[in-house]
């Protein structure tokens, strides 16, 4: 059986065909406005390059940065009714209070505060104010809002009130799509609520996008199920993405790091993904990206998704090479971006880019080498030193041990990477340019538990951790993971200070191979 991995980025759409652990082919196409035609071009390219029988393709996995880009560019975002259950608590900070003004306007700034929510120990702050939900329903109908996000205080401990509010709202507004914060995020009201609101604002786009993916596969004669990768490098069914587009927000860097790990067989290392404009650097630990400890900012909004700790610098294949006032050669952060294929010297343009330097120095060979023959040695050496310095500092920042771990270079711009960075050896896997699509193709299924346990009545930390692990495993199996392959990849307990009764917050994540995959 074959696997088809597709990565739909802002500039390129890549596809790979894999059999077990072997990459049979990779193909790069341009991302198109309608998404569909770009996906079709990439997957047809990969299929024909591999000479694959499409009946043999058993699963399709897609990674996309489409939804992240929509938030960052404030495009395709719909108005949302943001309903919070928590009064009298939380009255001082309305929903979206810490958003950038333009994004808050883009979602309509419709915040509603309602009596309800839970205390940390499960008591109700107040019973749900159902009549207020009815009044909000009328208001939503008047304003013709099509989506709502409901967030209750401490809903990660008990989802019941969010569910009840949704059911009540649907009586008034049967056609409104409702997102519950407890389905999306963890403890931390503003971050979880913001994620739920962003998710609701993207529902129409996710519907169209998933439809476009389905159409592309259908037109290619592929009838197998398809999955989409989420933040942690694991898969969710296409229909889940329709409901939870925000869960794909960090899948881009995750896929490239997981792809890099897979292509090299390394489980620990620093992955450097060099694109056209920027370079993303992150650490691999045990085959998974190291997670960021703090909140992650998406388009100016704080979220508490678990995301890879990725550090970006302004260096890419299209970075401008210039001489500054002091006479030093600088590279980036300005870039010709996707216009590199017309503006770089080797492609007949008249802008000196980082790629031109690599070609002129003989570190890569494509385009018109004669066009860069005139660049003087001082410029070449200065630019080379500048790029190496930038990469060294970025790698050093992500390095978490003095061990001589490898640096893995991936992405279309990885020709800029020297063979050695300081004391670290650089590995360049085959198919480095399509590592993202490979990362998508090998993604696994996960299950996660994150809530507060009370260490009382004979319950110990170990018992609670075990219980959380069993729950997470059950979730993973229900989502399609093979039970025998499941392993725990995150296991963390953070005691709640300043409260007697020894409450502790436990977070456990397990992953397993997807069923039906003969790896």
């Amino acid at each position, binding site marked *: 059986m074959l696997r088809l991995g597709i990565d739909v980025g802002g500039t390129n759409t890549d596809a790979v065909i894999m059999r077990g652990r072997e990459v049979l082919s990779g193909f790069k196409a341009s991302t198109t406005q309608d998404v569909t035609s770009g996906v079709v071009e990439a997957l047809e390219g990969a299929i024909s390059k591999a000479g694959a029988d499409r009946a043999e393709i058993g699963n399709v996995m897609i990674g996309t940065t489409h939804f992240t880009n929509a938030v960052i560019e404030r495009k395709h975002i719909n108005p949302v009714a943001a309903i919070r259950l*928590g*009064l*009298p*608590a*939380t*009255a*001082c*900070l309305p929903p979206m*209070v*810490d958003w950038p003004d333009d994004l808050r306007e883009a979602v309509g700034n419709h915040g509603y505060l309602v009596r309800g*929510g839970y*205390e*940390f*120990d499960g*008591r109700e*702050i107040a019973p749900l104010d159902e009549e207020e939900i009815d009044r909000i329903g009328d208001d939503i109908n008047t304003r013709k809002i099509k989506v709502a996000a409901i967030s209750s*205080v*401490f809903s990660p401990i008990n989802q019941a009130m969010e569910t009840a509010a949704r059911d009540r709202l649907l009586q008034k507004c049967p056609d409104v799509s409702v997102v519950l914060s407890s389905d999306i995020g963890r*403890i*931390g*009201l*503003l971050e979880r609520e913001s994620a739920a609101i962003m998710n609701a604002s993207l529902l129409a786009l996710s519907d169209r996008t998933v439809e476009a993916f389905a159409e592309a596969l259908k037109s290619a004669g592929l009838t197998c199920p398809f999955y989409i990768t989420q933040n942690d490098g694991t898969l969710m069914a296409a229909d889940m993405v329709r409901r939870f587009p925000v869960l794909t927000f960090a899948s881009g860097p995750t896929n490239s790091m997981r792809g890099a790990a897979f292509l090299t067989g390394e489980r620990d290392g620093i992955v450097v993904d060099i694109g056209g404009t920027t370079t993303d650097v992150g*650490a691999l*630990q045990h085959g998974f990206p*190291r997670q960021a*400890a*703090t909140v992650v900012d998406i388009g100016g909004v704080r979220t508490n998704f678990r995301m890879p700790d990725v550090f970006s610098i302004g260096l890419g294949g299209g970075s401008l090479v210039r001489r500054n006032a002091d006479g030093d050669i600088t590279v980036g952060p300005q870039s010709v971006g996707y216009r590199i294929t017309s503006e770089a010297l080797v492609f007949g343009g008249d802008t000196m880019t980082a790629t031109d330097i690599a070609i002129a120095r003989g570190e890569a060979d494509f385009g018109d080498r004669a066009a860069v023959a005139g660049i003087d040695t001082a410029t070449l050496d200065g630019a080379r030193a500048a790029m190496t310095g930038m990469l060294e500092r970025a790698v050093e*920042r992500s390095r*978490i*041990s*003095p061990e001589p771990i490898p640096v893995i270079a991936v992405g279309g711009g990885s020709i800029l990477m020297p063979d050695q960075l300081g004391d670290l050896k650089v590995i360049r896997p085959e198919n480095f340019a399509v590592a993202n699509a490979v990362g998508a193709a090998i993604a696994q299924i996960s299950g996660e538990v994150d809530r507060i346990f009370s*260490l009382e009545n004979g319950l110990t*930390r170990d018992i609670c951790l075990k219980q959380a692990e069993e729950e997470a495993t059950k979730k993973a199996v229900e989502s399609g993971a093979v039970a025998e392959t499941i392993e725990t990849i995150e296991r963390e307990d*953070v*005691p*709640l*200070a*300043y*409260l*007697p*009764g*020894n*409450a*502790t*917050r436990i977070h456990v994540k397990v992953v397993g191979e997807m069923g039906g995959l003969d790896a």
Partner: protein
Amino acid sequence: MRVVTEEDIDALEIGSAILGTGGGGNPYIGKLRAKQVLREGRPMRILPLQALPDDAKVVSLGGIGAPLVSHERIKEGREGLRCVRALEERFGFRIDAIACEEIGGQNSMEPLIIAALAGLPVVDCDGMGRAFPEMQMTTYSIYGHCSTPSVMCDCHGNVVTFDHAVSELWHEKMARACVVAQGGSSTLASAPMDGIFVKRFAIPDSYTKAISLGRTVRAAQKRHEDPVQAICAFEHGKQVFTGKIVDLKRHLKGGFVRGEAILDGFDGFQGDTAQIDIQNEYLVFTRNGVVEVIVPDLVVILDNDTGEAISTEMLRYGQRVGVLALPCHPLLRSPEALKVVGPSGFGLGHLTYRPMEETDRKDMPA
């Protein structure tokens, strides 16, 4: 009187997190609340400590409970105002100014917010000059102020008066029990103090210092200079370690987080090993088996690149950090203060406090 701007609030967020020495809770929610209050057109004013009249009636207040709860069940917003009003009713006089219990962490914001809502100034002082886990650990309590009658309010409108506690420790214990019933995040205002007492026994200039500290870090970041060095220069502190966290243990004991972080050095500390003892805050710094910094001096852990303070909850294996020692205020170094906020106040009676300036001799056994 200094009028507080939104920019000051941003700087205070950074400065108070540094002075939190790993604890005190994240000031982010408080920052948002403070900005909301400013945007509603309620001015915040900081009164210099020495401008406080001798007979002024000053109430210090702060949040009490679990920081994690305060990020989920965000406050109603006027809890502290209800505390002040209840105290005024109980004592039969009006309050003239609000003071801060704890400048470190999220409790730096609450007095500003409540003072603005009440139309009162905030005195430029606090009771700790940093963060401590318990209420009796303020210089107000240490130097003889009886913090009861006090008032504790929650988001529901419940108002609890602690009429009399036989000791400051009893007050802490009773308040801690009550905050659980109130949902784990309340506001507590202590009995009014006279201006003359506050001028003598409060840690001075806390707000101007924390705000300037935050501005210093910001400015260093903007100029791409080392923020860690900038903090040291500003606070007369020193960088005692640069390293990576190689082991981390945290466990609960009586509602408080205890544990230790082990670090391996790099840069100028290559080959050195350090340990930091945690008890809600960072308490003790030990290098190569020798104790170098002890509470109440401040042990601060910062992200080595950004200079941002790392709280005990944010500590992760593999983080690359700088460790700073900052001297505490002399009011915390007296024998009566050290009984409460020195090592023995944290069950570390086997250690003897020695000011960080004197430990360069490296003759202290761990």
